């Protein structure tokens, strides 16, 4: 066992991993200029492996960091000397391990989304930037209970079960980016709320926010047998289906995240630079309604975000509607580990400082 740990603690592994990280950082930076930030990030930094030219596998930053983390743990076991005079090095090492732990917590636990509200409008959900979901709910209920499946990994032939409502939806065809048309050469009865009859696949856009997915689905358990529906991410309407005379709606929409509060926009204020239409500053006066029913009024402005538990809400942008109504967009960041990078940095700094002080004492004693 100890031999395995000693091999895993090898300095050669450390140097190799650091070299890989250098290559990935350089390559990813160059790639993002062509393919966009999001795709480059997913390919080089968030993946375990990716393929070069579809043939040669290359480790992504996620794999490399895991190997480096294991290497660091094993080095802590076999190479560190646990004495007071080595306290600085030990603390620095702990700080480095904390960096990895904070990266892990942030990667798995953080979420970025946004919420757009008109004045007097409120919601308990934020909307994902790039992810989509197929959601279904029953109409006419006092509380709108939504059942949703993430659609990013939909495959043809996949079956989505909604046992609560006795319905299932089979995925016939799913396109990650497509265009919708109201005309079709094929005579086929396909149900859609916006009159869409056909979807055409198009290239994935480097700006992921511009991709609109769509799919053809078959509904099982509905009143109409062999019911085929088309759902398109770019349509604003939900498609209605019936089971035992009870109406349900199904929709392909951007993924929703639950907030631990309801946020209501009371007033949006904008100031422009004199004699221009360029915004100088804008702010949103909101009510935060907690699950216990306690309402708190908060002003969110460009440099003053709202922090609530693990959530931070920033004033992101605004829009003026066609009837003059004002909309405020707030970006919502959930990051349970937001303090960890600061703690890690502080630990490393303290460790290095202690090591410097101890080295200083050591030199003095030698003299």
């Amino acid at each position, binding site marked *: 066992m100890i031999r395995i740990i000693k091999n895993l603690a090898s300095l050669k592994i450390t140097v190799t991993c650091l070299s890989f990280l250098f290559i990935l950082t350089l390559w990813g930076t160059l790639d993002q200029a062509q393919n966009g930030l999001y795709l480059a990030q997913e390919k080089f930094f968030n993946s375990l492996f990716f393929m070069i030219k579809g043939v040669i596998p290359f480790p992504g930053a996620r794999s490399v960091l895991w190997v480096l983390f294991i290497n660091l743990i094993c080095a802590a076991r076999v190479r560190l000397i646990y004495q007071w005079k080595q306290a600085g090095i030990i603390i620095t090492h702990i700080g480095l391990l904390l960096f990895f732990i904070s990266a892990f917590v942030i990667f798995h636990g953080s979420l970025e989304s946004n919420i757009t509200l008109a004045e007097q409008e409120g919601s*308990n959900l934020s909307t994902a930037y790039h992810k989509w979901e197929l959601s279904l709910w029953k109409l006419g209920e006092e509380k709108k209970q939504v059942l949703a499946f993430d659609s990013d990994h939909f495959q043809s032939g996949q079956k989505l079960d909604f046992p609560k409502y006795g319905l299932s939806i089979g995925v016939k065809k799913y396109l990650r980016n497509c265009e919708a048309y109201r005309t079709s050469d094929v005579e086929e009865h396909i149900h859609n709320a916006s009159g869409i009859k056909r979807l055409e696949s198009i290239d994935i856009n480097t700006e992921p926010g511009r991709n609109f997915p769509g799919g053809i689905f078959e509904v099982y358990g509905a009143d109409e047998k062999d019911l085929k529906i088309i759902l398109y991410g770019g349509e604003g309407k939900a498609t209605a289906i019936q089971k035992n005379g009870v109406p349900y709606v199904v929709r392909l929409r951007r993924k929703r995240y639950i907030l631990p509060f309801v946020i209501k926009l009371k007033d949006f204020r904008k100031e422009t630079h004199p004699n221009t239409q360029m915004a100088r500053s804008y702010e949103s006066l909101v009510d935060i309604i907690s699950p216990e029913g306690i309402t708190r009024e908060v002003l969110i402005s460009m440099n003053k975000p709202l922090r609530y538990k693990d959530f931070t809400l920033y004033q992101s942008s605004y829009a003026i509607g066609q009837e003059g109504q004002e909309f405020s967009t707030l970006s919502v960041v959930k990051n349970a580990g937001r303090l960890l990078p600061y703690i890690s940095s502080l630990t490393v700094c303290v460790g290095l400082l202690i090591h410097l002080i101890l080295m200083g004492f050591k030199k003095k004693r030698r003299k």
Partner: protein
Amino acid sequence: MKNILIVVVLAVCLMSCNNRSEENRSYEEIHIEASKQVKKNSEPQGSMKGSAKKGSSKGSEQIMKGTVTTSPVSWVVPSVWLETKGSGMRLVTFKAEPPNSIDCSIISLGGIAGGFEANVIRWIGQINIQLTGEEQKKFLGSLKEEKTTTGLPVTVVDFTDIQKEKNDMTPSMMAAIIQLEGKTLFIKMTGDKSAIVNNKGSFKELVYSISLLKSK
């Protein structure tokens, strides 16, 4: 003991190497509807100047003073559209039935209401059309002033002309501007591209039928 701890850490590492995405979720959606009333001090459509708190500029004041809530004009409702009474600056709203649903309204604002070019450029931005400077100039140059059946000057702007490569569901618009004495009429039809295309005839029928109400 130390070795066991390392094995535990390694096991946690391996178990964590999975996809972040969740599969099946259930949640309660709470939505508070916005009030349909437009704020009294909200910016008029023709101009977006400084905050009302700082005091309106001369241009905004003129627009608000000239804005009428009673209709100065009359029109013929296209047979396939449903007319509903407007409120505030909106004189009237029209809707068409699915699948070619559109929303069309006639709005009256005082003065030149920001000017013809500024309004067209703002509408281009509203429906997310990306144009280079040259393309924008060419599009604006292609718009010609015509006359309604009663001789009122009108310019019709068809945004589907610059969305030919876009799909049927792309948000689109068709608009018309009629410059009257002391006020400007905006007739705007919004919807997705195929709905706009299918309602072009009705839109033009409405626009060309607009005439001034004779004062008593």
